[in-house]
């Protein structure tokens, strides 16, 4: 199922557009062109459809962020989707100071946000909205349009939510933030976006971060206290109490499962808990894996082996001096516990984003429309990894941080999310347990049986019922008749269109035919459409008795040219000498009395029939591998091929047609019997396979 990021409707897998609201589904690694609305691959700099510059959508320039006010924005992109559920308070959001000026400058997500707000909010003239927000936040908090938040943010919310020690704590915190933020946060340049945020994008974090992580991680256990009450104490000074707590809540088995232990009555909790207990460790492992991929990070210490790396960073970061995080992270300082108590005003805006969501009003509906994961390791989780925000962001910081994040992450966060979301249960088992993939299918038994079946007649012929009875084939008889009707000195073109792979199968019939042709006194010209064909021809001792024209490159086109003009098709022969067409007496393929192709692919036969046969009256015969006989036979039935020998059995039939009295030699007999028994062995294997399958299915048995 795919859930619509806009309205949450479940859509069939593979849907591209939501059945309910028409929202495009399936991946956000696209940039919507601000002019024509076309979706472009994220790496495009210019719109595929109209040529507009898209670059700023992907990487907003620095200037943008420095413009404090937002001028009029009209939203050229998609029409509003589902407006329900978007609280009024959001109307103000677009006026957020960090938003860009020109239309082209609007980041993609913002554009969509705008769109979803409807035309009503054409907010050009309004003053910077920060104050307004400040007023609003403590009371109500703003719920942002769900589709706007990048997945990773959403994820953040989904995880800490059950953790919140008590929601009362949150409100005061919010209040204070709200007061502080407008002044402080607005200045924070995007460059200071902490590395860990970037890291959420699924690549290993930059090198310099590693020491910091280590240190923070080391800090955490000290502050740690196992129970709620402590958490409460810690909470007020810390920006994101819930996050700080996470590491503490170590369960015996894994870090995360414990987090869900009965603390949180929120709507999401139940499924989340189930998920966490079952599958929690897995995410962690994945994350670790990602971290480890770079090979540069310190292993996530101190928080329990199972806490996802990003959570760890997050937690430790939050627990320690948040205000310093930005500056500190690149050059790790030595934060002391005292610093933790610093005033919140200093909290960087980006951190604000991580603030746990506001408490839901009584009677307010839980966001039921949030998608529940139905498959993969997040099964049962509501909105765990969706593009729906579940964070109650600080007023203007929301947009800022998201915009910052959006600039850094778009494609990669999305991609990772998709990967994660699609992981199935099997992908989440601990590494040590081998993932059961499929049964082996007893190759040993199969190999032995087949070898025995083939070897027995070769060593002791005459045991197999049916014996060496060769099925007579009319097509082989026609072939023989063609060869026998050749006048002496007739020119015959033989094309070696197979390679050594099937030489064992085709060499013998080809040799038979060549011997007969020689006996008829035909003039042989030998060519090949495969690079190795000339070598195979030379092997047959044709070097002295025939003209080896060598390799004709170009496959079908080469044959087409050969059919239109023989001259120039072969510049040099197999030996590297230039081909003298006059001496050969050949001006076109029409001079040939017979063309024979020995082919291992039906395409080659088709080329001969279509490119050569359709232009000339020269009869074409084919010697083909038995595997392609069914697809080549129609050409014989339609008369485009005047003779057909397929594989060994066809070769035997051909031989019988040439000299009906001669009986098969011992080797030929043995080969036919081996063929018979080999087929029987395969049938036996098929039966065994079914017995094994049905035995297991009906009577259980080992798995």
């Amino acid at each position, binding site marked *: 199922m795919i859930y619509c990021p806009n309205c949450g409707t479940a859509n069939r897998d*593979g849907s591209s557009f939501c*059945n309910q609201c028409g929202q495009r589904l399936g991946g956000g690694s696209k940039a919507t062109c601000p002019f024509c609305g*076309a979706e472009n691959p994220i790496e495009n700099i210019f719109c595929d459809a109209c040529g507009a510059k898209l670059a700023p959508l992907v990487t907003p320039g620095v200037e943008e962020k420095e413009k404090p006010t937002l001028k009029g924005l009209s939203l050229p992109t998609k029409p509003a989707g589902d407006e329900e559920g978007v609280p009024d308070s959001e109307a103000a959001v677009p006026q957020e100071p960090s938003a860009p000026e020109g239309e082209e400058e609007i980041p993609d997500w913002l554009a969509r946000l705008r769109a979803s707000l409807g035309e009503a909010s054409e907010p050009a003239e309004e003053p910077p909205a920060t104050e307004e927000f400040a007023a609003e936040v403590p009371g109500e908090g703003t719920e942002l349009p769900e589709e706007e938040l990048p997945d990773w943010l959403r994820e953040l919310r989904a995880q800490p939510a059950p953790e919140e020690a008590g929601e009362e704590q949150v409100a005061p915190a919010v209040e204070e933030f709200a007061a502080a933020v407008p002044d402080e946060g607005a200045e924070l340049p995007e460059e200071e976006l902490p590395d860990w945020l970037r890291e959420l994008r699924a690549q290993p974090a930059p090198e310099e971060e590693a020491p910091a992580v280590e240190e923070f991680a080391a800090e955490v256990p000290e502050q740690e206290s196992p129970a709620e009450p402590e958490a409460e104490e810690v909470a007020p000074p810390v920006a994101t109490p819930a996050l700080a707590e996470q590491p503490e809540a170590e369960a015996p088995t894994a870090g995360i499962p414990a987090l869900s232990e009965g603390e949180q009555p929120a709507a999401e909790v139940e499924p989340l808990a189930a998920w966490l207990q079952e599958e929690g460790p897995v995410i962690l492992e994945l994350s670790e894996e990602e971290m480890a991929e770079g090979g*540069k990070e310190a292993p996530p210490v101190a928080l329990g082996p199972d806490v996802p790396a990003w959570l760890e960073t997050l937690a430790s970061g939050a627990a320690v001096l948040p205000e310093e995080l930005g500056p500190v992270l690149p050059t790790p300082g030595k934060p002391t516990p005292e610093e933790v108590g610093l005033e919140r005003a200093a909290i960087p805006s980006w951190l604000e984003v991580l603030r746990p969501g506001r408490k839901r009003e009584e009677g307010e509906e839980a966001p039921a429309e949030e998608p529940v994961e139905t498959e993969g390791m997040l099964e049962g989780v509501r909105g765990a990894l969706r593009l729906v925000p579940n964070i109650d962001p600080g007023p203007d910081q929301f947009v800022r941080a998201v915009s910052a994040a959006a600039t*850094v992450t778009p494609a990669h966060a999305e991609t990772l999310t998709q990967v994660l979301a699609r992981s199935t249960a099997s992908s989440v088992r601990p590494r040590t347990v081998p993932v059961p993939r499929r049964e082996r299918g007893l190759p040993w038994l199969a190999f032995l049986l087949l070898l025995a079946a083939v070897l027995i007649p070769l060593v002791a012929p005459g045991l197999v019922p049916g014996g060496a009875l060769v099925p007579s084939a009319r097509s082989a008889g026609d072939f023989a008749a063609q060869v026998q009707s050749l006048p002496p000195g007739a020119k015959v073109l033989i094309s070696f269109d197979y390679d050594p792979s099937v030489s064992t199968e085709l060499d013998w019939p080809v040799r038979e035919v060549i011997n007969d042709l020689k006996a008829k006194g035909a003039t042989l010209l030998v060519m090949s459409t495969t690079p190795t064909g000339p070598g195979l021809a030379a092997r047959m001792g044709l070097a002295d008795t025939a003209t080896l024209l060598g390799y004709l490159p170009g496959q079908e086109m080469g044959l087409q040219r050969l059919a239109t003009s023989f001259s120039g098709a072969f510049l040099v022969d197999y030996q590297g000498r230039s081909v003298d067409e006059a001496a050969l007496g050949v001006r076109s393929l029409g001079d040939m009395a017979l063309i024979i192709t020995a082919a291992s692919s039906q395409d080659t036969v088709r080329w001969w029939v279509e490119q050569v046969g359709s232009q000339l009256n020269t009869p074409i015969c084919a010697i083909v591998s038995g595997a392609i006989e069914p697809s080549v036979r129609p050409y014989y039935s339609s008369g485009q091929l005047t003779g057909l020998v397929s594989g060994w059995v066809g070769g035997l039939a051909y031989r019988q047609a040439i000299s009906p009295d001669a009986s098969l030699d011992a080797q030929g007999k043995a080969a036919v019997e081996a063929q018979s028994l080999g087929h029987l062995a395969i049938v036996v294997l098929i039966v065994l396979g079914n017995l094994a399958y049905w035995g297991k299915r009906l009577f259980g048995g080992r798995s």
Partner: protein
Amino acid sequence: MDGILELLGNSGITATQALMFILLLLVLPLLALFASQLRAGKRISIRPIRAFERLGTLIGQSAETGQPVHMSLGVGGIVDPSTAESLAGLALMEHVATEATACGAPLTVTVSDPTLLPLAQDTSRRVWETHPYQYQVQEPEARMIAPDATAYAAGVMDILLGERVAANIMVGRFGPEYLLMGETGVKSRVPQIVGAADPQVLPFVHATADDMLLGEEMFAVGAYLRPRPVHIASLRVQDWLRVFLILIIVLGVLLRSL
């Protein structure tokens, strides 16, 4: 009608050529129409194809275990009739490479035809270069094994046997040598997603792959994995042409029979 045919014949165009040309031209307005309909918000659903859905899982497994993903682009090149199949493989490769680098799964891409190699290399380089932390992720390795199909298969067998591969994704042109690779993958218990078009090969794909892209499904990579209106429109056009062909066949059969 005869007049038109004569006119065409004089300028070197036969009736069948004209017919095929019309079939080809039919695509353009349909494509434009459907694409604009989609852009205007028309809904079209596409049937689910499991192989595309499983792709991410396999890459996730690879990221988890650190074992590489192997992707084969087949034995076709870009200067022969198998070009389209090679391009389908390439399109899927771009997607796989993007996901693999994003989550840090090592990826090895192998080709057989030397003309396809530069495209595979450029694709992997492009994916890698757009990665913001390119110097900390591995660039997907694109390499040629051998221009000969059997030798290529032998080389792939070597990778499947020797490199503890987490997943084997093969999309492109495959011939009878496929069985060597596919069955080795089964034997080494590597999960496989295979897309092939040749009916001679498909039964073996069916027997060895966990998920298959059967025939033309492999050409739908664009529409399923990086959906743009034009890709979905392209599928729609394909379906219309399909109906067109079916109608022609049925009509022809009726005419012949009556």
